[in-house]
């Protein structure tokens, strides 16, 4: 059973509010995110990479086809169960770090565990451990407004790992970082796959980063081609 499996995914968008015309972004795509492997999707801007990642994470629904997460079809679940599946099995990292501005770094990291119902005392140690591992031990009580871009992205990575998800979905995770920070984040994500046996589905423009992954796909003409 694959952590995430996309079966015959097609995604169309309406070109007007009235729904008179449609544009196809993804056409009949099959993809398996393999356990303990990193998979990168590259392609031009507007080719539908992010859309594919959103569909893979159950954030958006396909026009046709289905997405299986641990063998469960996202579309068969109600809001409560779909949210729980996302909470426990998928970690998200985006270009914009998307942290809660009122929460400290530590609270942001703990958030997925708290949502799943764990008490603060049960998850604080792991959150602290993750922040320390990513060099943020002296930034734990800082709110995102007091952190640099690189630090925020590392907090977002910690948050994505908090519930020990099987798969990490990352959309341009280094896109907003300078070269030094970008290299750090790349290394961190790839190490996670190697050391902790997690799966990574990466969407990026960065060819160098993409080709460090185990599998590389090119999204072109609404379809996927395996490059590596």
């Amino acid at each position, binding site marked *: 059973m694959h952590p995430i499996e996309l079966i015959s995914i097609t995604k169309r968008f309406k070109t007007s509010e009235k729904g008179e015309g449609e544009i196809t972004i993804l056409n009949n795509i099959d993809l398996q995110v393999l356990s303990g492997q990193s998979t990168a999707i590259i392609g031009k801007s507007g080719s539908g990479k*992010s859309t594919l990642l959103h569909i893979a994470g159950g954030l958006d629904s396909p026009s046709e086809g289905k997405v299986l997460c641990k063998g469960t079809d996202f579309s068969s679940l109600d809001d*409560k169960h779909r949210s729980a599946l996302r909470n426990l099995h998928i970690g998200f990292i985006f270009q914009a770090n998307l942290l809660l501005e*009122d929460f400290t770094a530590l609270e942001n990291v703990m958030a*997925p565990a*708290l949502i799943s*119902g764990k008490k*603060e005392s049960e998850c604080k140690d792991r959150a602290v451990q993750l922040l320390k591992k990513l060099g943020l031990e002296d930034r734990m009580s800082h709110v995102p407004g007091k952190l640099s871009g690189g630090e925020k992205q590392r907090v977002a990575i910690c948050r994505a790992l908090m519930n020990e998800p099987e798969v990490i979905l990352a959309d341009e995770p280094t896109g907003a970082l300078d070269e030094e920070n970008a290299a750090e984040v790349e290394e961190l994500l790839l190490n996670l796959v190697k050391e902790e046996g997690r799966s990574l589905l990466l969407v990026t423009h960065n060819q160098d980063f993409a080709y460090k992954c185990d599998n590389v796909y090119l999204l072109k003409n609404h379809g996927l081609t395996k490059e590596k």
Partner: protein
Amino acid sequence: MNPFVRLWSLKRITRRGRLTSCLILIALVLAPLICALIFSDSMMEGITSKYIYLSDGHVQINGEHLTSISSMIGEENEKLMIYSADEVTSGYALMYSATNTSSVMIKGVSDSYFNELRMQQITFERNTTPSTSSIKGIAISRATAKKLEVELGDRVALMIVPDDVNKVLRPVLVRIDAIFYSGYDQLDELLSFIDIDYAKELYSDISSTTIEILVKPDYMERINDVIYAFGLEHDISRWSDHNVSVYENFVTSRQMIMIILMLVVVVAAFYTASVAQQMVQDDIQDIAIVKLIGSSNALVRKSAFISVYTVTLAGMILGIGLGLLIGCNLGPILTWLSSLGFQSLTFYLLDFSITIPWLSIAIICAMLMVISFISIRISLIRTKVITPMRLFTSL
């Protein structure tokens, strides 16, 4: 409660801004409402007491039954919780001074009439100079004395309005032996007291004489028992029967105050819903993030509800506390305002004991809680349309 819901709610509540102003606004709306309730209830009760103790008694029994009732009262006194039963003869008169005229009710009472309970409602300033003439004494109110421009020891003429239309009007001269003040000018203006024997001479008709009964303070609710015990339902009346317009004004005023307060509370409760709606609008990004990391819509709604509802309840408690604090100190506040020369206060009773209308306060609080509960929940339905995709479409 889900630990994240608790943390997120706490963050919102402690964040200065919309919720803080909601708390302050609810407190500021409720405090004057509670204060107004205490003021109106206390004053109405105070005025009612003035009418009962000085004008009509709790119960009045027609003088025709005087003999039989008088003998009964002694026996039944303990059983019926009667505090006092006094024979009173009353009638109307025009009072003339050298400069002015006033229409008054003359109450003929015995010395024992002003018992401890009545003396709590009235103060007397008495003439210490002994009378050297046969002119009878009268006690008039400070308001009447002011109107007639007379003082203790002065003489005034009374034009007795006869109880029998066939009798002729006749003037009598009386000397002002006492000036009283009950604190409520509207009642004082009408009242004057003379000796009952003299009153009987002036108003000889039997219907002018009644027995005023006071029930013991702790047994007010047993007035009906008193009425039924005498078996004279048709010849017994209460203070409200004698002062129908005053009584009905009280009832109507009380109802109107309550309706207005309820409407204000309804508006305040709907305001909390609009605060909830605005909070969701402000927190769209956070809601989308929280849903992205795995929160269900139910958790999001719960957290938003707890934040706004907690603030509403806190505002309510603060408002009630503030209202009670001011309400319980209304006496000194009104006295102070009166000393500043607020003329409108002369129409009110300024000296009254504070009555806290717990039931009305409870109704208002319950209304606020229920309406805000429902309206906040309804306004939070729209969190459902905020999906994590909102983060990417707005970026």
